[in-house]
């Protein structure tokens, strides 16, 4: 199989180049080739600098990093048990003078060296938008998803790279956060850094890149300025999709301008007979209060969305409802079940099923085995098997590849598999945590269609989503979560028209 086939790409010094394409197009494979994690069967990769030309193909990753090529990883690869500061300081490794022998006898000049590194690390944290005082000593794994992405960028910058390769730096971020990523990239570029950017967010890629290359099935199908690429019919069919074109063209507020002016009233009607009822829920990780008194409800047959920035506590709320975390205070009831004390397996058996963030499919098991695990808790084995067959018919993406390892599916297909797996537990309430995370625009459409379809079949849905616009489109009601509290609530359309929400989450 050819993952990347006969691709040529030139990156001029000082440029910002975008690389886009559907999930599974070979973008990350290309990055892995350039950074030495994979070896190509043919072709060459050259780094041209004032000192001469260096052939990078067949060199190990650490040597390539030593030449000044830094990268981030699509699937986060932080040193999870080390602090944020330590993560950044390790990024300085190739530049750090080897002090191993001198360290054996502590000398003052070495300590000064260390102080300098600490100061630089804290500057880098600040630069990417982390607070060194608050986050510096926290273990990387305790940071929110978006903060972990930022930390990875800081770690890559610590290398003082000539070329920075960002593999989906804005995945899982809301538009306001994405704007900050864009500002950061532009600021770094102004300082002389060359950037290769891979992302699915068209506003970000189109807004920041001078030139964009599009991959599909391992081949380059288009290259050019953002305008030429976005008008290219091949790119539209392969990648952008009709829906995304609409939302890429969507200038927030344009069609809704008239309504914004009169400030739409926020409906705050809570359901009278909620299926899920949450009252004053508070959750903490050690000393860190992640959720500070949250109350909301979900009635049978609704789609309810929780939107808000990374680290606001949305995933924490879902994990608490699933029984994976225990609250410090508050009430959470699902029908007659007390979610604050019930064990997770019992919660699932009662019909509250979570599809976790990042999908968490079992990559080495086949698609069918993944689905069978979804039906694990069920006693009616035959009916479950019929349902598995039914799902594989319903989602041909899964049915056609039933005996392949699930790891071979692209991101969007994996998300559909994760949702299908959740459905097999016969949910009365399905919790979806960031279903569109890391998906190409066309795939986002498919996933949201799937969500709507299963909702029409009678499943109640609680949705956490960074793509607030899409979430509010399908949600009956939504809550805006900010720093562990609910800031606003209302119907999906009312919130979509709310100027504050537009500014903060819809990229106004």
């Amino acid at each position: 199989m050819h993952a990347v086939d006969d691709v040529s790409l030139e990156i001029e010094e000082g440029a910002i180049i975008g690389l886009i394409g559907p999930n599974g197009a070979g973008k990350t494979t290309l990055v892995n080739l350039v950074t030495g994690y994979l070896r190509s069967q043919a072709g060459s990769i050259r780094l041209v600098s004032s000192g001469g030309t260096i052939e990078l193909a067949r060199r190990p990753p650490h040597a390539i990093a030593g030449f000044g090529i830094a990268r981030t990883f699509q699937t986060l690869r932080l040193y999870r048990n080390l602090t944020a500061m330590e993560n950044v300081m390790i990024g300085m490794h190739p530049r750090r003078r080897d002090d191993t022998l001198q360290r054996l006898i502590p000398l003052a000049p070495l300590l000064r060296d260390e102080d300098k590194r600490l100061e630089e690390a804290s500057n880098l944290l600040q630069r990417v938008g982390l607070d060194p005082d608050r986050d510096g000593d926290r273990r990387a794994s305790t940071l929110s998803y978006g903060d972990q992405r930022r930390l990875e960028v800081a770690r890559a910058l610590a290398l003082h790279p000539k070329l920075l390769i960002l593999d989906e730096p804005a995945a899982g971020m809301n538009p306001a956060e994405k704007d900050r990523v864009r500002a950061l990239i532009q600021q770094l570029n102004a300082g002389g850094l060359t950037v290769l950017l891979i992302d699915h967010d068209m506003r970000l890629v189109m807004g920041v890149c001078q030139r964009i290359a599009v991959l599909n099935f391992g081949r380059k199908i288009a290259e050019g300025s953002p305008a030429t690429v976005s008008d290219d019919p091949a790119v539209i069919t392969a990648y952008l999709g009709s829906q995304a074109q609409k939302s890429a063209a969507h200038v927030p507020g344009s069609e809704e301008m008239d309504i914004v002016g009169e400030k739409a009233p926020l409906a705050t009607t809570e359901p009278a007979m909620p299926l899920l009822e949450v009252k004053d829920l508070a959750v903490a990780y050690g000393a860190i209060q992640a959720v500070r008194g949250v109350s909301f409800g979900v009635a049978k047959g609704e789609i309810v969305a929780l939107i808000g920035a990374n680290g606001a506590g949305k995933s924490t709320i879902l994990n608490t409802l699933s029984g994976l975390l225990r609250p410090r205070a508050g009430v959470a009831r699902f029908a007659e079940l007390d979610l604050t004390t019930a064990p997770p397996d019992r919660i699932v058996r009662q019909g509250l099923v979570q599809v976790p963030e990042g999908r968490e499919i079992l990559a080495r098991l086949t698609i069918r085995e993944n689905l069978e695990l979804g039906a694990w808790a069920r006693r009616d084995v035959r009916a479950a098997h019929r349902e598995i067959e039914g799902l594989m018919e319903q989602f041909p993406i899964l049915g056609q590849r039933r005996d392949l390892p699930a790891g071979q599916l692209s991101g969007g297909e994996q998300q559909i598999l994760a949702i299908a797996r959740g459905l097999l537990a016969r949910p009365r309430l399905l919790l979806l945590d960031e279903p569109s995370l890391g998906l190409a625009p066309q795939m986002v459409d498919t996933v949201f269609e799937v969500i709507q379809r299963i909702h029409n079949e009678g499943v109640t849905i609680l949705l956490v989503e960074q793509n607030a616009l899409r979430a509010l489109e399908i949600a009956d009601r939504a809550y805006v979560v900010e720093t562990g509290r609910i800031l606003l609530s209302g119907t999906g359309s009312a919130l979509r028209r709310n100027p504050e929400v537009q500014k903060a989450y819809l990229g106004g």
Partner: protein
Amino acid sequence: MDFFIQLFTNPIGFYNQHELLIAQIGINAILAISIFVTFYSGQLTLANAGFMAIGAYTTVIMSLYLPTPLPLDMLIGAVLAALIGFLVGLPVLRLRGVFLAIATIGFVEALRLGVILNVPITGEGQGLKNPSADPLGGIVPILASLPVLAYLVWRLTQSRLGQAWSAIREDELAASSNGINVPVYKMIAFVIGALIAGYAGALETHINFFVDPTEYGIGRTIQILTFAVVGGTTNVLGPIVGAVFLTALPEIVRGFAAYRDVVNGIILILVIIFRPQGIVGRGGLAFIRPRWWTRWRAPERPASAH
């Protein structure tokens, strides 16, 4: 209880009475340091007993046949262990996790069954009598080496080298993206571990009259591993505490001495269940810290939107 009463009321008498125990604690603590080095770099290697055997046999064979001074014999024993560590590391360090563990156990057994039991100069199954044994004088270099080694390894973990080890332990792939030459740093850790284990083996011959091939099998390796697991591997004190605790335990609870392995097994299970990070967890002896400690260390700051 008598054990502790004597330790505090009559330390000199305690020392005289328990000299062999103290020497053994010292040896085990040094072995614990040797496994700590490889653990710290994220490698589950269990070759320590093999390197110990190389250090021990080299020292004894040299004092049997060569007129060299004993310290030189011991030094050469340790260096030879490191050298063989390098050669063994070349193929073996490509492996990870449990495969690395099995390969290194294979090395230990191949060395013992294949080489030691078959080469006449090692006395084969009979073992070797050590002409320069000095059970009482041997304690001094052991107790002198322990703090020096602990200090040096602690400083190493603070250096650029140690930082690279941490990175490799946490995520090899990310480490290489940060410009860390993963194979080289793994090899350095493996060789330093072999050097320290070989040195411990050499020191141990000094307090025994006899080198016995049965001492250097899987059992010994697993014992060393237990020190690290029970003590914890986030800093060099962990394995040392584990070694001291587990070596002294049969003496403290004399009644259980016959069930030593059973007691060790139970302790191991309890630690793995209730304190997976070991007795000395991240940030010191966490279990003796009062409850308010963490709050005092990390005062809650108002979380702001970002």
